[in-house]
């Protein structure tokens, strides 16, 4: 869909990483320039709310609701940030979110990878029935279970604990499905050879299968981490004590206490939004590939 094919000997600067164009450099026709303008306008529309949040967080508290609006207020100040930082809540929630998300991700990847491997490579009585039971679980949205799950947590004494937030997010049948699909495509010869050499089942799994599946495991891990970090409904239901809240829940819970201190609200949102954006900046390609991979796994 690009202009005429002009075979260049060097890859065009900036388009280097897309291997699908075969080194063709599209010409800047008027049509493509028009597309670029449209794309830049849409980019501006998407970045505007984020820019507005950052700008507001850097204003003195009295200037945040001025009309007509200005981007800077009367001066640029970090007052809002220091106030939010001093209150200390944000740090606690960040740590809670980090701990809960990392633990959930590790547990999910390990248990789902083991289960998927068990379903594709081993045999035991009732395997097909259990596998079917797991696949059927893909149809069950966790949101449907909030009432019985909460009562279960009350009975187990896990309300307001990390485990109460973590455990219901670990067994994700869709992730098993994705990994089963992957393992089915892995040739058995490597494992077979290792068995013949006398390696045991566990050693083969940890030293051959896991390293082979690094890309797909990364995709599952990224997907799990993002959804756990951003999950609102379940942590919101199962934590009542501010000290145990995750970041999204904490922010919403104190929203009303801010009143009209908009610069402080925006400062806390900027701090809250930054971690994943920084992660994204570093792992952009893995995240993009992971999302595409896990999202398209249903095909």
């Amino acid at each position, binding site marked *: *869909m690009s202009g005429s094919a002009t075979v260049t000997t060097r890859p065009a600067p900036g388009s280097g*990483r*897309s291997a699908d*164009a*075969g080194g063709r450099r599209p010409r800047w026709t008027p*049509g493509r320039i028009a*597309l670029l303008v449209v*794309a830049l306008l*849409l980019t501006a529309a*998407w970045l*505007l*709310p984020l820019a*507005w949040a950052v700008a*507001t967080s850097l204003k003195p508290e009295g200037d945040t*609701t001025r*009309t007509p609006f200005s981007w800077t207020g009367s001066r640029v100040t970090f007052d809002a940030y220091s106030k939010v930082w001093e209150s200390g809540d944000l740090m606690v929630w960040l740590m809670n979110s980090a701990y809960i998300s990392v633990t959930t991700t590790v547990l999910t990847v390990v*248990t789902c990878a083991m*289960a998927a491997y*068990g379903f594709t490579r*081993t*045999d*035991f009585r009732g395997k097909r029935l259990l596998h079917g039971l797991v*696949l059927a*679980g893909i*149809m069950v*949205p966790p949101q*449907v*279970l*909030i*009432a*019985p799950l*909460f*009562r*279960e947590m009350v009975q187990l004494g896990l309300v307001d604990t990390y485990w109460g937030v973590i*455990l219901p997010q*670990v*067994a994700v*049948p869709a992730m098993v499905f994705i990994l*089963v699909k992957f393992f089915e495509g892995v040739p*058995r*010869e490597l494992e*077979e050879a290792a*068995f013949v050499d006398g390696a045991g*089942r566990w050693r083969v799994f940890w030293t051959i299968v896991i390293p082979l599946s690094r890309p797909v495991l990364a995709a599952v891990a990224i997907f799990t981490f993002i959804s756990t970090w*951003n999950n*609102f*409904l379940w942590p919101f239901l199962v934590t009542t004590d501010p000290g145990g809240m995750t970041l*999204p829940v904490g*922010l*919403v819970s104190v929203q009303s206490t801010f009143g009209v201190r908009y610069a402080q609200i*925006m400062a806390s*949102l900027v701090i*809250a*939004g930054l971690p994943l954006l920084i992660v994204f900046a570093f792992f952009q390609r893995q995240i*993009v590939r992971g*999302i*595409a991979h896990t*999202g*398209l796994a*249903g095909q």
Partner: protein
Amino acid sequence: MTSTTAAAPAPVAKPAQGTTGGPARGVRRKWTEHGLVFVAPFLVVYALFLIWPLVSGLGMSLTSENITGSGGESVGLDNYAEAVRDPDVWSSLWNTVWFTVLSTVPLVVVGLVLALLAHQLRVVQWLWRLSWFAPFLLPSGVVCLLFLNMIFPSGFGLADQLLATVGLTPEIGWLTDERYAMLSIVATTVWWTVGFNFLLYLAALQAVPAHLYEAAELDGAGAWKRLLHITLPMLRRTTGLVVVLQVLASLKIFDQVYIMTGGGPDESTRPILQYVYQQGFTGYRIGYASAVSYIFFALILTVSLVQPLLSRRRAEEAAK
């Protein structure tokens, strides 16, 4: 999502074809040992936190139980009978479906348009990804509090301010006027999550074989022709998937409404999940909340089960 009925199941632990007189029996046993040990950790968590609540919730929906677990007397199907007669159930269901209809169309179409643009303009790929996908990585609380506090307030909110710059001062209650509240929630949702569909489409576009375009170009097909006759047909399966994933995601709306409007004005944006929450967690009627949950579950199941049938029918028609 899971129409894997036609495909034959994976061969069950067949030892690989031994070319050198078959592998030793010990090796064959290695293929089959420890199976349960591998699946056990997952199955334990799965049984405890998915299967069990699913079953116990069904039981709870037949009782008059409250949140602390006391007062649970069996009431048979009374909860369901009440739910079917409850106008709040119907209005919440309607709000949920309405939000799904309103949000799915722009989320799919805008996602596709953004992907086509990014695919055409590969020069600054990082910029497109950053601006259109980054919001998806923000927690709902961050997004909704931003729009609630700085975009939608009348007068000083960015929405009104931008209108003012072009001389319009319509004084719209974006989140407080029944005519606009749902649309504002939809707009927020599109801004926040369209990046996901954008990425799915972008991945699908990159998988379209280049030789198709080259052949079309040699035949003298213009850009529009190539879009209509190659790109869009090649994206049909992706579109089917994106639509289903989006419908299932939109039906589960809760965060945006809870944070931005609380279900108002006048319950006009309250989705079914929020009604479950109100009945079970603030009204303490957890038995009734479970019954409403199962009605919601039936809706979700219907959507996920109808989809494979539709796509199979379409595939058959396309094959003719």
